[in-house]
């Protein structure tokens, strides 16, 4: 791979390296602030790249994209307020760890799992680049529908501890996802005449509300600081967190594969990838019930998926100009501004640039981790700050972030309303995960189903029409039956013991 070496050399040249580093810093800051994220950072970068060299622009964009995950997960762990949407899964076990005073362990796990995931994703990307087109073409409307169903099923069964509440939350999420303009039949639904809701419930404000706002409302009501007991806060846990990642290398690989695969499917994206990585790890664990109380694997899995997903998302973006995620949509703009038209010729015409971007992505994940580890001591101290001081600051910064996305006051109102809903869910112990997944996947599922019905002229056979769709159907059936295995085993054990006694 002489091109790859050449690209590495050109990225490592001092000038270009500076742009990667600048990107990493911007990415970390935008990642940490809830509401702001890769999409906003890249959107602000886009006009600045106008006068830049292509390689510099890509180096900086790669720097941002690689570092966002680290920043987003830091706020997820410390504040239970994910800085970016895909980091939401890291809250589930990361924040309980912070409460136990082990924020440093959690950040250490992130700092090791995310570059490893990133590396895995990049290697996969390099391997499959030549067949990127074919991979993207495997997914049509029937497959999109099945992927969405698979995602919803995975999450539904992983909340088996309180299945009914999980279903209620999922149902609310589906209802929210159907708000707005129906792109298949053209009707406008559940908007109550509001122009704002025409585009549906926007994901990022909803997530900021559901996690960040809800957590801050809880903190203000209950008082105290994030860490329950100041005496227990350990600042030296970074290394044990990093060692944990290496010990759980299987979790890293599973998370990375999930991230790369799901990241490559447009409209499903990073948030679903991290949640599915979390759910499958929980499901595969001998003690799934202990997840959510601060299991380090519950951080490693979504974090490795979080950085691997970017490589996956690059496939449809480069091969067909179809962004795999919201970030990629803006990144696409940067490519086009520099005359790189995504499509059949991009790999042939712009090979050095693409390799440069890949190297920048990898480098930036590593740099971001180093910076994260360096500051872990000060970051972990946030868990000692009193709620009366922390909550107003986080709420104000999050709402500014939410407003900055589209300069829409409606987004701020929505984040606040969903924040109250999120708090009520916390208070009455409803899982928020099914709501998020259903909110994201509801539209994909509905659109996929309706389009499949039109293409197949009403024949359900279209869902087993291709190898991909058959594989997906089998996966769905397997994960459904998997959830009954423990139940059956218990029944069996009960009946055997019943017979012997």
């Amino acid at each position, binding site marked *: 791979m002489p091109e790859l070496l050449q690209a590495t050399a050109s990225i490592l040249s001092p000038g270009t390296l500076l742009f990667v580093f600048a990107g990493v810093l911007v990415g970390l800051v935008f990642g940490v602030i809830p509401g702001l994220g890769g999409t906003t950072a890249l959107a602000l970068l*886009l006009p600045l790249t106008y006068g830049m060299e292509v390689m510099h622009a890509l180096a900086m964009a790669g720097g941002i994209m690689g570092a966002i995950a680290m920043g987003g997960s830091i706020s997820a762990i410390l504040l239970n307020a994910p800085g970016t949407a895909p980091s939401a899964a890291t809250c589930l076990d990361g924040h309980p760890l912070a409460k136990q005073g082990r924020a440093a362990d959690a950040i250490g796990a992130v700092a090791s799992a995310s570059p490893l995931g990133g590396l895995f994703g990049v290697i996969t990307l390099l391997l499959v680049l030549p067949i990127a087109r074919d991979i993207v073409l495997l997914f049509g409307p029937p497959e999109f529908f099945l992927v969405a169903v698979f995602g919803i099923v995975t999450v539904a069964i992983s909340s088996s501890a309180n299945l009914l509440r999980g279903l209620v939350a999922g149902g609310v999420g589906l209802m929210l996802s159907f708000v707005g303009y129906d*792109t*298949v039949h053209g009707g406008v639904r559940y908007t109550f005449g509001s*122009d*704002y809701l025409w585009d549906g419930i926007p994901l990022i404000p909803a997530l900021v509300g559901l996690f960040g706002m809800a957590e801050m409302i809880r903190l203000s009501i209950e008082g105290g600081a994030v860490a329950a007991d100041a005496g227990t806060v350990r600042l030296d846990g970074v290394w044990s967190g990093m060692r944990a990642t290496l010990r759980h290398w299987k979790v890293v690989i599973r998370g990375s594969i999930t991230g790369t695969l799901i990241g490559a499917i447009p409209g499903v994206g990073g948030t679903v990838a991290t949640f599915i990585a979390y759910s499958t790890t929980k499901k595969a664990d001998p003690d799934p019930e202990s997840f959510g109380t601060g299991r380090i694997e519950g951080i490693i899995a979504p974090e490795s998926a979080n950085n691997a997903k970017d490589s996956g998302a690059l496939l449809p973006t480069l091969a067909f100009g179809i962004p795999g995620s919201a970030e990629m949509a*803006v990144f696409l703009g940067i490519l086009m501004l520099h005359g790189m038209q995504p499509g*059949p*010729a991009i790999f042939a015409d712009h090979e050095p640039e693409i390799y440069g971007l890949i190297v920048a992505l990898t480098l930036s994940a590593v740099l971001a981790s180093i910076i994260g580890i360096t500051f872990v001591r000060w970051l972990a101290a946030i868990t000692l700050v009193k709620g009366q001081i922390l909550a107003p600051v986080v709420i104000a910064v999050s709402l500014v972030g939410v407003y900055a996305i589209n300069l829409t006051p409606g987004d701020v109102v929505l984040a606040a309303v969903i924040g109250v809903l999120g708090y009520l869910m916390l208070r009455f112990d409803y899982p928020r995960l099914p709501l998020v997944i259903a909110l994201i996947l509801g539209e994909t599922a509905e659109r996929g189903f309706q389009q499949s019905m039109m293409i197949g002229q009403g024949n359900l056979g279209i869902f087993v029409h291709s190898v991909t769709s058959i594989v997906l159907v089998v996966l769905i059936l397997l994960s459904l039956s998997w959830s009954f295995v423990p139940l059956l085993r218990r029944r069996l054990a009960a009946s055997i013991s019943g017979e012997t006694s």
Partner: protein
Amino acid sequence: MNWIRTIRPTVFAALFFLIACSAETGYPSKDITVVIPFNSGGAFDAYVRALVPGLEKHLPNSINVLPKNLPGAGGRRGASDIFRARADGYTIGIFNMPGVLIPQLQNMPIGYELSEVTWLATLGYDTYVFVVKGDSPLGSIEDLKGLGRSVTYGATGPGSTSYVATNIVNETLGIPFEIITGYKGSAGYLLGLIRGDFDAAMINYSTARSYLESGDIKALAVFGADSNDPNIADAEDLGAPELGQLRVMRMMGGPPGLPDDIKTMLERALLAAMDDADFKSWLASTGNEAHPASAAETTATVLEMTEFYDRFKQLLD
């Protein structure tokens, strides 16, 4: 502190002079906002951002021109934002035609009336290509008519430009058809076509170009431009010259009642910016094309387009 006392009159005089100057030079005395009713990263966005440096250069008083993305409601939010702005020349924007025209003709609740917009210039247009899959046995529009079944098409949502264009072409040419809606953007249904979800599509040339060159898709007809290729029909060849009006246009406009002197200044600056060497080299490097037209021509085109789409009103949704 004697020296302060000495220079004080000079400072006052200088300040007074500055204030007098700025009052006299008039428009533009502050930054101008250009509203882009789409997310950053799209074709409209790239076009405006590439044009901005030239626009700053050709406007007096070295003010800044600031692009502002206001996505939402399929471009209607941005359009109504431009329409409702104060008519002082500090807020102008780009309009996607007929994207914002169709909801107006459908009598949807929109915050603008396109016939009242102060049109400044046209930046360019995109033609529609009638495409099928590259290895499709279908070689002409006649082949499609002879299929003996409804031809299936892919498009974005009902009421979108691609959906309306597909309706108008097939109704006019008398082809029985069905549209599979719900694809995300032109890249979305282009991919659907290559994958084989449906038979054919109406797609804007800038998206289709590289796939036409690679042979993934092939063109049967083109609308909005004359065809030089004997294998590709144009509106005239198909005996339906009115279909030549099917174009997607990028037009610049401001709120109603923009004073004439400001309008002329903006029009001149826009046209000069499009003639700028930097902008032209950007066009060349990205494969974009500019088709500049004056304010008067743009106003006339808007009227023509309104009449054209009004004739097909029953096909809009």
